[in-house]
């Protein structure tokens, strides 16, 4: 541990990491074991993240609010009468929202049944809470970074980009059902990714001002996901819930990471060559570059992922949920049919490009604001 980085920041970063581990552990649990309780280990990991977030936030807010002499006061903001760094409040808000989603989710299960889908109202409440844990951690780190300089500033910048990688994870996980590989030859897949990812890359680039910000963000995302992909299947798991349609003997990990690293590299190159462009120009260029390069990289890679050559430990295309019908296109390595006509393809491409540009613009504006954060 570096003495220059305060403990509460490590705590916030641990919350950001733990929540992603917990969420993916939980998803793997549902895909392999199927049955869980309110107190299952993955759920505990998720709640632990909320507690870590609360501890990080409270350590700053309590002192700043109740001790006049607290050094935190100088860089505190005021929320509902409390004082503390902005990141602490966002982190606390995320933690409380996550904990609030727990009884709601439990009730939802009792009323409407188990986790049949990721996108249910209580899960969206949880996802918003999780996003705010990440966002709070990012702003926590950024506030400290923007007040620091030298080696500490450099390290905090790297940690900020790590949290951006976690934000990419969190956003794509929310739409996991819509972005698995059977969709990868469809415009809808590229639309989801182009709407979500350029925002984070652009925000990371602008807020950090660092070279290769998007590439580092994509690296953190890819490394984390590869870790899950390669570690989770090492643990045995057996379905405890029928109908079992596919034999499963170990935890089912997430799919191979999207090739976001490729458009990230090109975006970083673009930004390094165009320092004087306006936000609008950058947004248009970044959006188009992301959408195009990602499409060019991911489309053939998806074809590879569907092939028998990808059904191995490294690429992990041989893992299927216990309730994957053997006759499904997913199990057969077939894409869902893509856009039927040229007109539909052009319309889809236009949509993807527009979403990419809009996402980039929001990300740039957001990043510009974040760069100014001092508290």
């Amino acid at each position, binding site marked *: 541990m570096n003495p220059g980085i305060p403990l509460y920041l490590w705590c916030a970063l641990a919350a950001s990491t733990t929540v992603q581990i917990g969420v993916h552990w939980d998803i793997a649990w549902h895909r392999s074991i*199927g*049955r869980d309780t309110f107190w299952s280990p993955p759920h505990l990991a998720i709640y632990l993240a909320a507690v870590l977030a609360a501890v990080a936030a409270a350590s700053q807010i309590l002192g700043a609010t109740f001790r006049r002499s607290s050094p935190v006061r*100088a*860089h*505190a*903001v*005021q*929320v*509902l009468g409390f004082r503390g760094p*902005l990141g602490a*409040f*966002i982190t606390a*808000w995320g933690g*409380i*929202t996550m904990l*609030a989603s727990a*009884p*709601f989710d439990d*009730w939802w299960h*009792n*009323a*409407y*049944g*188990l986790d*049949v889908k990721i996108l*249910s*109202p209580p899960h*969206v409440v949880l996802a918003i809470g999780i996003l705010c844990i990440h966002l709070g951690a990012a702003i926590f780190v950024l*506030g400290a970074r923007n*007040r620091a300089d030298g080696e500490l500033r450099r390290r905090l910048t790297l940690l900020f980009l790590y949290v951006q990688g976690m934000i990419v994870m969190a956003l794509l996980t929310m739409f996991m059902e819509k972005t698995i590989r059977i969709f990868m030859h469809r415009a809808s897949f590229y639309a989801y990714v182009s709407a979500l990812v350029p925002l984070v890359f652009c925000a990371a680039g602008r807020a950090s001002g660092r070279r290769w910000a998007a590439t580092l963000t994509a690296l953190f995302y890819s490394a984390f996901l590869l870790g899950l992909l390669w570690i989770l299947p090492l643990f045995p798991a*057996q*379905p*405890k*819930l*029928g*109908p*079992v*349609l*596919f*034999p499963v003997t170990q935890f089912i990990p997430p799919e191979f990471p999207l090739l976001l690293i490729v458009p990230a590299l090109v975006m970083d190159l673009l930004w390094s060559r165009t320092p004087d462009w306006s936000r609008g120009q950058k947004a248009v260029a970044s959006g188009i570059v992301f959408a195009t390069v990602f499409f060019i990289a991911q489309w053939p890679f998806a074809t590879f992922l569907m092939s028998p050559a990808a059904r191995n430990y490294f690429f992990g295309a041989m893992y299927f949920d*216990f*309730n994957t*019908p*053997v006759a499904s296109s997913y199990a057969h390595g077939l894409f869902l049919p893509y856009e039927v006509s040229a007109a539909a393809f052009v319309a889809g491409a236009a949509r993807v490009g527009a979403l990419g540009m809009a996402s980039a613009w929001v990300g740039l504006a957001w990043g510009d*604001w974040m760069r*100014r*954060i*001092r*508290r």
Partner: protein
Amino acid sequence: MRARSFKPRPAALPAALVLIATALLVDGGVASAHLGSPDVFFEGNAGPYPLLVTIRPPEVIPGVAVVDVQAPDDQLGLVTLVPTPLRGPGAVLPPTADVAHAEVGDPHRFSAKLWFMASGSWQVRVHVDGPRGAGDLAVPVPALALRTKTMQRGLGLGLAALLAFLVAGMISIVGASVRDAALEPGQQADGQRRRRSRVAQTVAAAVLTALVLGGATWWGDEASGYGQNVYKPLALQASTAVGGDGVITLSLTLTDPGWAKSRRLDDLVPDHDHLMHLYVVRVPAMDVVAHLHPDQGQPGKFQRALPALPPGDYQLFADIVHQTGLAETATTIVTLPAAKGGGPIGDDALGTGRALAADAATTRAFRMPDGGQVVWLGGDSADPLRAGRTTWFRFRVDGADGKPATDVTPYMGMAGHAAFIKDDRSVFAHIHPSGSVSMATLALIESGNGSGVSADPHAAHKGHAGHHAAALPPEIAFPYACPKPGLYRIVVQFKRGDVIQTAFFSARVD
């Protein structure tokens, strides 16, 4: 002639009081033909061990079923339970089995909780191990959504308060972000920042309100989407017409109120040789009961000439079984005028007993018109009936000479048929010695069971092959648990020689 449909008061008929059926009948559903009595009772042999299995299906799907296994004759070492779909690939790869735990103080009784993940036709595979080796038994269970749940007031208020706090907190955070976040440490916000902060808070309040309202709409959509999966029983309309011969013809029409697309009215299959088993029960006394088998004209339309029934109000309970295995009970009320009777024909039966209200307590014996008697065995006052507890209802048929009858023969393939009807008519169950699963459903399961595990009921009660006239034992037993406390009428029907007889009992359930 006027017919009115039976519209129970909400108090008399809670939301859960619907017959079980499936929302997603992908490969056909199994249900027991009952009203207000969703539990499954099944008597069968797992290898050498006779078992009585009770399954209380979950009310929401996915949900938890409670399974109770009784081995009255044996000390079993191990009982494991695993639910699988009845057919299809899910029947081939069972999930990890649950070990049922022995009940404290009752070595013959095991229980477990089982998850049912999807709606439809399921089976619970029971595996037992004991001193005489291992055995297996499969019990068909319908897993169907019976209701939607509303939120408890306390939880709702708590979550609403939390939501208000979170909304207020987020508005304040947005305000602080705009006002203070970019200030160098120690600086104070100026008037312009404060104004911008107020604008931002107003915008945040509007956006959050829109988000909360949007979320509420989404929640409502999800809830109503689930609500459409909740089982809706078939509607039954009844009308009567007096013919030139003075005999009443009862006409019945089944209509689908809209539920699963897979439910049809033109796919009924015979159960004990009949497409419909109709119980005609005089109400409120429940002192006259006819068990008739109307003939189907067009799909969903049935007719029957009525036997001599005293005029008055009658509750009709019509049992039918679909080709998918789904069994349903439709009900209505009809008012019968005074008329001549057509007399029971074939398997039809008519009986008269005492008014239910006159039997405030459990009755033990019923005197037959021919001088014989049916005696309800066991269940003495030291062991009162309890709601929800599976009990063997044992009856012995005695002849006019006072000795146990030697001429009991199968009646529609069974040693006997019993109907359990609660005094407020919120519960109706048609039970056989093998339990609550209709014979037509069992036949469908045996023909389509890909699991390799037999769903055979106890051999002694085995169904349709038994139209032979070989005499059966004088004792007939039915496994059942009255679902709630109150006064029940039990109508037991059996055959002596060629004569179908009907015995009436009352049961007080605590």
